[in-house]
């Protein structure tokens, strides 16, 4: 049990995604939440305290809200500067601490005005995770600085080593927790009847307008409880803007019920994203779920969508899409018909070969290092020296080089990779320029091989020596 717990949280894996989460989520928070709040700070600062209610964050740290007018420039400047440095990764951890504090103060301050912003709730928790989690400093100026001192290949240095994945797992647990809590809240305050479609239909029909805030009476409230007004107001509606499609759905009763069942089922089942092979089957529908709500009710929960997209296991998603597209675009070449000559010392070329071996299920491609006698035999020693030294594809005895070589390889791999042909809309000179730009820097960017790669017995027949 303990081992399973530790394996769930602390198994080693690629964690540089947290660096990408840092860049994207901090940038999003900076542009969409902090910057507007900073612009409005002078207005908030003169607002009477009676028109706000301290949030949990402000109450916990005893922070005043609205801020003192003399401090608005300091708070705003600190928030913007720490956000920029946290996004770029300069003094990353310290910047994240300061930015999380500023974000808590400003976003919490906005929520203290009466409307709890659930998008910022999630973003704030993500910032807290990033402050400590390993991997959050990937893709940062700090990593670039460390690379300048240590040298070596650039991209592995920026990406950082594999490590304990508890930060990624914590983000997944957070995300699944807020979904499951949403589902539980519906059952708690709406009962099982919430799924009958009446509640969703009520919102989709435009009853909860954004122009004024509808208050709602409780059912069966006695006169003693309703002493304020004789009605017994119980709750306010959550404002939403019902689109034309939403109103159409509301007018067709089975549809709100189906959507309610779908929403409730999705939220209560969101914990399934913690199972690795089901992760994408929850996260990608979550994006669709939010996009649909955004279309119907003008609540897109953009921050949640972003986080879902960032946590998707993209290699697995691409593999799944490739499997589907292979039925449309299967591999057409015969086994062994195409030979790929590659630079055996180059980390990028080696990774490309490993990927091609994985994708090439039919075995259409054979491989040989450009430094091997096989390359000389195939092209001739003079030709080999005169051609570009990264990847060459030989098809029907004709060598293809630069971007044509890569596109030919992708074409023969079939499936999703055939879509690479779209890049043929670019002029060949531009494609080749981009190819040459990367090829020229491939050792510096991707490094040379740290280990000797040996083909497995099954793969030996696909390598020419």
């Amino acid at each position, binding site marked *: 049990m303990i081992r399973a717990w530790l394996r769930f949280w602390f198994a080693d894996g690629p964690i540089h995604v947290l660096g990408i989460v840092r860049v994207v989520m901090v940038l999003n928070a900076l542009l969409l939440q902090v910057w507007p709040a900073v612009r409005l700070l002078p207005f908030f600062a003169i607002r009477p305290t009676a*028109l*706000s209610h301290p949030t949990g964050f402000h*109450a916990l740290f005893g922070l005043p809200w609205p801020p003192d007018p003399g401090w608005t420039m300091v708070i705003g400047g600190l928030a913007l500067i720490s956000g920029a440095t946290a996004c770029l990764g300069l003094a990353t951890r310290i910047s994240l601490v300061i930015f999380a504090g500023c974000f808590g103060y400003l976003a919490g301050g906005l929520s203290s005005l009466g409307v709890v912003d659930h998008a910022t709730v999630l973003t704030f*928790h993500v910032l807290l995770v990033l402050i400590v989690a390993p991997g959050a400093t990937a893709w940062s100026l700090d990593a670039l600085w460390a690379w300048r001192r240590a040298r070596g290949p650039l991209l592995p240095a920026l990406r950082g080593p594999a490590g304990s994945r508890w930060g990624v797992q914590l983000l997944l647990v957070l995300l699944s927790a807020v979904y499951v809590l949403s589902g539980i809240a519906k059952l708690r305050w709406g009962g099982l009847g919430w799924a009958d479609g009446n*509640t969703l239909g009520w919102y989709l029909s435009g009853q909860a307008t954004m122009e004024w*805030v509808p208050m709602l009476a409780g059912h069966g409230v006695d006169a003693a409880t309703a*002493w*304020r007004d004789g009605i017994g107001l119980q709750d306010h509606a959550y404002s939403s803007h019902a689109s034309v499609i939403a109103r159409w759905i509301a007018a067709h009763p089975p549809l709100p019920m189906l959507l309610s069942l779908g929403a409730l089922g999705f939220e209560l089942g969101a914990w399934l994203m913690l199972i690795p092979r089901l992760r994408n089957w929850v996260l990608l529908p979550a994006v669709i779920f939010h996009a649909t709500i955004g279309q119907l009710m003008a609540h897109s929960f953009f921050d949640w969508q972003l986080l879902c997209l960032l946590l998707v296991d993209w290699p697995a998603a691409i593999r799944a899409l490739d499997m589907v597209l292979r039925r449309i675009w299967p591999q057409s070449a015969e086994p062994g018909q195409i030979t790929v000559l590659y630079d055996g010392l180059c980390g990028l070329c080696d990774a490309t070969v490993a990927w091609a071996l994985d994708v090439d299920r039919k075995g259409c491609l054979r491989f040989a290092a450009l430094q091997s006698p096989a390359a000389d035999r195939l092209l001739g020693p003079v030709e080999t020296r005169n051609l570009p030294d990264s990847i060459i594809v030989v098809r029907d005895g004709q060598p293809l080089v630069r971007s044509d070589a890569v596109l030919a390889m992708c074409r023969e791999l079939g499936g999703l990779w055939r879509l690479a042909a779209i890049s043929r809309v670019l002029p060949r000179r531009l494609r080749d320029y981009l190819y040459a730009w990367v090829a020229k820097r491939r050792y510096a960017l991707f490094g040379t091989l740290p280990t000797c790669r040996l083909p497995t017995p099954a793969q030996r027949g696909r390598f020419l020596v």
Partner: protein
Amino acid sequence: MSDAPCPDAPLAIIPRVNAPLPSWRRYALPHLWIVLILAPLLVAGVAGIERWPWSACAMFARYRQPGELRWRFGLLARPADGEFAAMEPERYGLRPAQLWRLFFVHVYGSTDPHLPQGAIPNDTPAAFTARMQAWFAGLCIHLRQRGMPGADTWAELRLDLASIDPAGAETSRRIIGIYTTASGIFRHTSP
């Protein structure tokens, strides 16, 4: 293709198989952080509390029936020598959702003792009146600061509650109370 360590490869790149678990220190800080982040969130969820940055995520959760009445708060102002006329504080830096949700949850008070956004348990008419007075005073200051026409001449402000049918028509109206600006007194007149 398999990864085989070169004879002279540094040990760090050789994958460890069935390595013993590292010491507890490796896990202490992450566990502490995990608990610090998750525990308040789960407590808020279970207890049904909505207070940024913790949330029970109760939005859209309350059951609604088709055709039910909605209620709308309205504010009216009366100058010393005039009649009550509707005012629109929302036009002066107060978003409707913020103004009225905050007012309802933290000033007016819900009949639900477990309202996630903030219940006021054991509320009394005296406490209600005190909250209303503080809120009206703050509102007057704000609207005067924002230059709302006539804000300096108000003698009384009135809080109304109107019922609105699903088609958007007002079906009834009742006065909740009147606030006198000079004395800062709120008179609760309803029900």
